[in-house]
């Protein structure tokens, strides 16, 4: 299986590349086919989107935390959406909707997976680029187009889509139901269709690259966990995004061509609609068939990144490498068969509810295994707290804290009361929102030297971590209480709850809003650090974290084709940290066992015989790149 796929690079190919090295500005930075540039494009787009998505949440948190506040000062930005000093009710819903859409899809899917799958897959498996650089470029530009359309929907008169990020019909299908279901929803659907196209092109590329372009010696069992995570993520996306596309297409038909896929027996705006026989629940099944895997599409890359960073900075092998792969595989498979736990109280057959409850709670087991393995990796390590390491530990904490409440929500009997309350909001923000965001941050801090050839400021990183970590808990921990008190989500205000229930949580809502604002402001530290370091950062050393993976053997200023000369061969797994007998506390993957006789385990000495074989694959590998 040690295949050789890869790129090419005998000296011949190399010269060849050199001839083409002077790309024009457009080809180099805009319509680039280089995976490293595309990764940076994804990253910067993701960061920009994150600030927009965050800002939206701050505006609706102002409404929730300070319902009596005069918001006239926001009029220069929001214009007609501020009416008599108050946030327009429909615009509140629009903000909630766009915050969810932007964060889930544009930040945590494109920004996280798009950045790190693109950047790390070729570099960590030892490939010169993605299987198809052209499709990879298209993938980014489809995403860009989707972004432009989504962004433009913020500025139209009827407002952007406002039916919640899940856009359940009939609300999203009938323009007469709310203004946001007019042009705003059309733009949302168009944008998402393009986004899905982008994801599919990206996903196919990731899968092909991992399967076909591994360097000689890089068997599947020697892949870093990051790559395993990206690989599973791509498979999840490839299988589930098309379902969302079909859900969206049917919705487009219902909206524009008079079909009745989701519509039946509707009386609205003083007239009975002719649609008969559709099912609103059908949409929910289709949506969550993507929607649930999407949670793992967002989370798995973050977990992969964390595995790598925790092992490196604990100076220890990741505990249970195969168990980690196994649990990711388990999560990937189970992710497809738990979707209906989002629908326990939709009127779906209760028997189905039972089935999905069983399946859902099974998925807690591999998740628990992962958490325990991370903790055990820390045990008896020699821990170095780089900002990336801090964010990784933070991720594990958030993943545990948010994941545990999933045990309650996955229980359909308990979900009856908690469904669509703030308890759910708290749960998923911790386990997939904040945890994945921490994964993104950890990844940026860890691979910034490789991305830009510069170092970020560590102290700013520490401060950024602590403010964010404390802030995130302050925002989402109290939300559990509000949910347990029965506060429904997507409420503009809680006046209709009655019985003094709103009053009981005025302080807490205010606290959450203040914490959210501070946490949001703390991200400015990151932004400044990030952009400043790109230009003015200290020059990065070759291998700043003494890491084992292949990307740190590539030239500091990424070059087209990734390695000058031959791509390194791989002889060992990526987690030989602090190996007994070794003089250094890390042995990179490209160091053969024959060079480390003092630290080899008996079974590893047998591997020495295979080194010739691996070397022999060089020609095959090069030939891949040469035709």
């Amino acid at each position, binding site marked *: 299986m040690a295949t050789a796929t890869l790129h090419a690079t005998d000296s011949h190919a190399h010269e060849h590349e050199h001839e083409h090295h002077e790309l024009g500005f457009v080809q180099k930075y805009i319509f680039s086919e280089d995976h490293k540039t595309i990764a940076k494009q994804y990253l910067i787009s993701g960061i920009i989107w994150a600030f927009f998505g965050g800002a939206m949440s701050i505006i609706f948190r102002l409404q929730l935390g300070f319902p009596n506040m005069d918001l006239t000062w926001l009029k220069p930005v929001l214009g007609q959406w501020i009416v008599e000093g108050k946030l327009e009710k429909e615009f509140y*819903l629009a903000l909630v909707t766009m915050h969810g859409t932007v964060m889930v899809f544009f930040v945590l899917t494109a920004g996280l997976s798009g950045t790190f799958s693109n950047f790390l897959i070729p570099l960590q498996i030892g490939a010169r680029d993605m299987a198809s650089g052209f499709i990879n470029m298209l993938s980014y530009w489809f995403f860009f187009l989707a972004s432009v359309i989504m962004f433009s929907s913020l500025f139209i008169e009827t407002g952007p889509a406002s039916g919640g990020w899940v856009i359940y019909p009939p609300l999203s299908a009938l323009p007469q139901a709310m203004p946001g279901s007019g042009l705003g929803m059309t733009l949302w659907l168009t944008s998402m269709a393009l986004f899905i196209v982008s994801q599919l092109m990206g996903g196919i590329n990731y899968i092909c690259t991992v399967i076909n372009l591994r360097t000689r010696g890089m068997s599947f069992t020697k892949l870093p966990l990051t790559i395993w995570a990206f690989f599973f993520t791509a498979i999840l996306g490839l299988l589930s995004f098309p379902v969302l596309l079909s859900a969206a297409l049917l919705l487009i038909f219902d909206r524009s061509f008079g079909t009745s896929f989701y519509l039946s027996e509707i009386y609205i705006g003083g007239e009975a609609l002719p649609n008969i026989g559709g099912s609103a629940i059908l949409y929910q099944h289709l949506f969550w068939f993507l929607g649930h895997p999407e949670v793992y599409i967002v989370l798995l890359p973050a977990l992969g990144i964390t595995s790598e960073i925790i092992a490196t900075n604990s100076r220890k092998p990741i505990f249970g490498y195969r168990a980690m792969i196994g649990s990711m595989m388990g999560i990937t498979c189970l992710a497809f068969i738990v979707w209906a736990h989002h629908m326990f109280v939709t009127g779906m057959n209760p028997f189905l509810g039972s089935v999905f*409850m069983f399946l859902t709670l099974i998925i807690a087991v591999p998740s628990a295994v992962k958490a325990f393995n991370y903790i055990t990796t820390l045990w008896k390590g020699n821990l170095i707290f780089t900002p990336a390491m801090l964010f990784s530990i933070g991720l594990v904490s958030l993943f545990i804290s948010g994941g545990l409440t999933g045990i309650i929500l996955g229980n359909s009997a308990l979900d009856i009361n908690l469904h669509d309350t703030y308890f759910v909001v708290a749960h998923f923000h911790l386990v997939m929102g904040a945890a994945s965001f921490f994964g993104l941050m950890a990844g940026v801090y860890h691979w910034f030297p490789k991305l830009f050839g510069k170092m970020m400021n560590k102290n700013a990183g520490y401060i950024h971590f602590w403010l964010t970590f404390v802030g995130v808990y302050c925002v989402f921990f109290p939300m559990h209480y509000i949910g347990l008190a029965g506060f429904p989500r997507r409420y503009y205000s809680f006046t209709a709850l009655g019985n003094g229930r709103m009053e009981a949580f005025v302080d807490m809502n205010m606290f959450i809003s203040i914490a959210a604002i501070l946490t949001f402001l703390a991200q400015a530290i990151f932004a400044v650090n990030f952009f400043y370091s790109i230009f003015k950062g200290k020059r990065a050393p070759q291998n700043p974290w003494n890491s084992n993976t292949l990307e740190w053997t590539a030239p500091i200023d990424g070059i087209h084709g990734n390695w000058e000369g031959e791509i390194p061969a791989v002889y060992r797994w990526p987690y030989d940290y602090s190996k007994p007998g070794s003089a250094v506390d890390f042995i990179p993957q490209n160091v053969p066992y024959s060079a480390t006789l003092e630290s080899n385990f008996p079974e590893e000495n047998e591997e020495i015989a295979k080194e010739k074989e691996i070397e022999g694959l060089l020609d095959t590998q090069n030939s891949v790149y040469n035709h």
Partner: protein
Amino acid sequence: MTYLIGLLSVVFLALAIMIVNKSMALSKGIQGAEQDSESPVDGANNINAIGFIVFLVLGSIGAAWSFLYSKPDLLPVAASDHGLITDKMFWISMGVITFAFFVTNALLFIFPFVYRYKKGNVATFYPVNHKLELIWTVIPAIVMAVLVFTGWRTWRDITAQAPDNAVVIEVTGHQFGWYVRYSGNDDNKLGNNNYKLIDDTNSLGIDYTDEKSFDDFTANEMHLPKGVPVLLKIKAQDVLHSVYLPYQRVKMDAVPGMPTKFWFVPNKSTDEMRYITGNPEFNYKLNCTEICGRGHFGMAITVFVDEPEEYAAWCKQQKPFLTQNPDFLAKVPEKLKSKAQKYIEAPAAQSDSTQASGATPAASTSLR
């Protein structure tokens, strides 16, 4: 539960103070020592390690305090039979996850402190231990299995067929309010309705070709009998809504074109709740929990849970929709007119056409 949290936080507090004390001295020593240019860490490494301990302590205290602070308002008094069961199950599950929460987070934050970088230390090469992994795969699996099994049994009971003696009430969501229809004093059966029959008066589209509709009455508030199974038949006219009775722990979506249902036994009357909560103004509410447009947050009606005899008395006072809107007699098919006639009050009947009054009671019996 409360004690558990209190106890845990005290333990952690003590532990943490000890560790922090020790570490302060330690880190001072280290920082003062040589700034090794080869060292992979800077002075902040120890501070960050201590940070995790401080976070653990303050976080535990914060979690315990905030829980105690909001406890009185969490899961407001359950006012239905199944609500009592699910609440109990909730607190048991919560106990289990709170335990896991504190243990795992404590390890996660204590390890970084204990095993922070120290010059000359070498990490232990410890890549795998199958026994350990087996243990922590099996234990969560067993705990999960127990929780799932009890959850499943409760869920099965809650979603079982409603008992035959259940009082049937229809609740229909629309932008932005709820219509409530009762099955009437005579047959405890709801008549058909059809969205195409909706007009300004007949906002539910009640179908008067169905004789079961004749005694149905509507109301702007919901009355439920205490201690009796109530079957809610849930509908929506325009977009998705969701019936949420927070105190009764009832939630079920209202879906256009697909009637749903939920049955439960309310077990605390409004008066009892006023007494329990000490709030003479207390009223149950029915809220919407599925986003439905600009008025979503305000889409609520008041719910009264009455003693069964009070409920019966209240029902008796209600007039069927047909009685209040005798014009709809015209929609009743000829052969059922006499049956419907019963619900038309005398003055209304007199003002009616002779044709209507012509259908005499005698005729109706013969038709039967």
